[in-house]
């Protein structure tokens, strides 16, 4: 594990054609790492996560994505993912579509080293017909016919979290979603954190560690790295930006302008935050950075 800059981490660990797991289920979405991938012009990526939100839409708009493996993609609570929708309707994007449960199981299988897991979902309706080569498996004890969900082991995962120690043990609390499963199913992990704290602080609350040091390939300190999503205890969700994105992403030219200004037009997250200052740090005391045991 190396503590390095995010730019270096992405350069070293994301290759063209990789399958990339994007962490963050509403919470701790790794926007800074995703924007760095756009800036570096990585191409032909397969992106995966269960519930995909506007970071993945931006990566599509940025020209990085040839394929998606997702359970959902939209702007949660607001509407559609417009760059995704345009790319799909134009035929320039391949889509492999699961449900949030069955995709979680695919990652879980990858994490625990099972080549497949049986599921009681994808047994009816139109979804199973649109997944190529989807197999069933019969339980040898009950005779039940189940969907065989194949393991998914992404090449690299992007995870943003509250904090880590210098060894690379990463701690996240609040909503996890599929972040831990997806990251630990992946061969490599790029972690960004709000701050690095002393190892003894981490070792005093080992229940909060979601990624052990030996699984983390690169660690970068990127305060504000999840904006406009949030980091439990550090800053809250910038709902207005999601609403604004719904408006601006409806037209390709406006979306291009957004990426030019806020992704390509900034060198790093610090410069980005100069454009979108984090104003809401009014969390309860027990959730303040460093106050968490």
């Amino acid at each position, binding site marked *: 594990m190396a503590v390095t800059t995010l730019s270096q981490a992405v350069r070293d660990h994301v290759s063209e054609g990789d399958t990339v797991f994007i962490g*963050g*289920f*509403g*919470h701790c979405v790794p926007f800074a790492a995703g924007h760095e991938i756009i800036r570096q012009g990585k191409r032909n990526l397969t992106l995966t996560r*269960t*519930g995909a*939100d506007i970071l993945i839409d931006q990566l599509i708009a940025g020209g990085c994505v040839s394929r998606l493996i*997702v*359970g*959902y*993609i*939209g702007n*949660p*609570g*607001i509407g*559609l*993912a417009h760059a*995704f*929708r345009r790319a*799909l*309707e134009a035929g320039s994007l391949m889509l492999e*579509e*699961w*449900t*949030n*449960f*069955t995709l*979680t*199981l695919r990652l*879980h299988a990858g994490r625990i080293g099972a080549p497949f897991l049986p*599921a*009681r*979902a*994808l*047994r*009816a*309706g*139109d*979804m199973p017909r*649109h997944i190529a080569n989807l197999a069933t498996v019969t339980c040898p004890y009950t005779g*039940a*016919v*189940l969907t065989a969900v194949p393991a998914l082991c992404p090449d690299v995962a992007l995870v943003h979290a509250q904090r880590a120690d210098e060894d690379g043990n990463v701690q996240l*609390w*609040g*909503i*996890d*979603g*599929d*972040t*831990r*499963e997806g990251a630990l199913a992946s061969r490599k992990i790029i972690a960004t954190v709000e701050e690095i704290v002393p190892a003894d602080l981490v070792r005093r609350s080992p229940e909060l560690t979601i990624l052990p040091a030996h699984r983390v390939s690169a660690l970068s300190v990127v305060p504000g790295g999840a904006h406009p*999503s*949030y980091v*439990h205890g550090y800053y*809250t*969700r910038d*709902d207005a930006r*999601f609403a604004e994105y719904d408006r601006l992403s409806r037209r390709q030219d406006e979306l291009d302008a957004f990426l030019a200004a806020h992704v390509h037009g900034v060198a790093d997250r610090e410069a980005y935050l100069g454009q979108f200052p984090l104003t809401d740090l009014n969390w309860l005391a027990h959730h303040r950075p460093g106050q968490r045991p």
Partner: protein
Amino acid sequence: MSTEIESRNLVLAAALELRDDETCFVGIGIPSLAAMLAKRTHAPRAHLIYESGGIGADPQVPPLSTGSPCIAENAAMLGDCLDVFGELQAGRIDLGLLSAAQVDRFGNLNSTVIGRYESPRLRLVGSGGAHDIASLAKQVVILMPHEPRRFVPQVDFITSPGHSLAGNERAAAGLRGGPSALITGRGRFTFARGEMVLAEVFAPFTVDDALEGLSWQVPVEDTVMRRSDFAPAAAAAYARLDRLPTGTG
């Protein structure tokens, strides 16, 4: 467009589908409003579960995302997707509340695509957890504004399986209960025989209002119940809820 009275009826009627002490898998939007209302009225010990891993959630504002701060901030337990979908698959979720872009007479739901899958007219968000909830909750209640274009004889794509003509198809595929009711701002439909049947209307709407514009001949119970209003305490709680900012808290 749904009027204000219809929005109110929909949330108030949907809330009544939650029973106290039961487990409910909740989605964003109307389902969350209904669940929040139920907890503030007749079902304070209903266990709200969000696919993000929030268990025993008690959001103080209507969340924009199942991963929003207000889901985490006040939850009794924070697990992960596997925890909550595991409970669902194990048959321990009593009720799922779902919305969708389209519904058909059997309660099949479409949240994937308008038009053909391979050549979409309008590509939607996809299943998320909806397919899983529709397949594996003990019971599903569908919440839909009365917008006739959403009610179609056959959905363009079955994201979340409802009933079908052959009554045992769900069971044969290992699925659980399926839709027990569909609620609009004008009335409540049941699926007692696997097909949507009007069972109740909410004042001031009539049977004709509840069926207005629907593109097939929806069956009507011999005796349609008429709900003149909701409990005053529930109506008051709804009014307070309606003044909350929608957002993530």
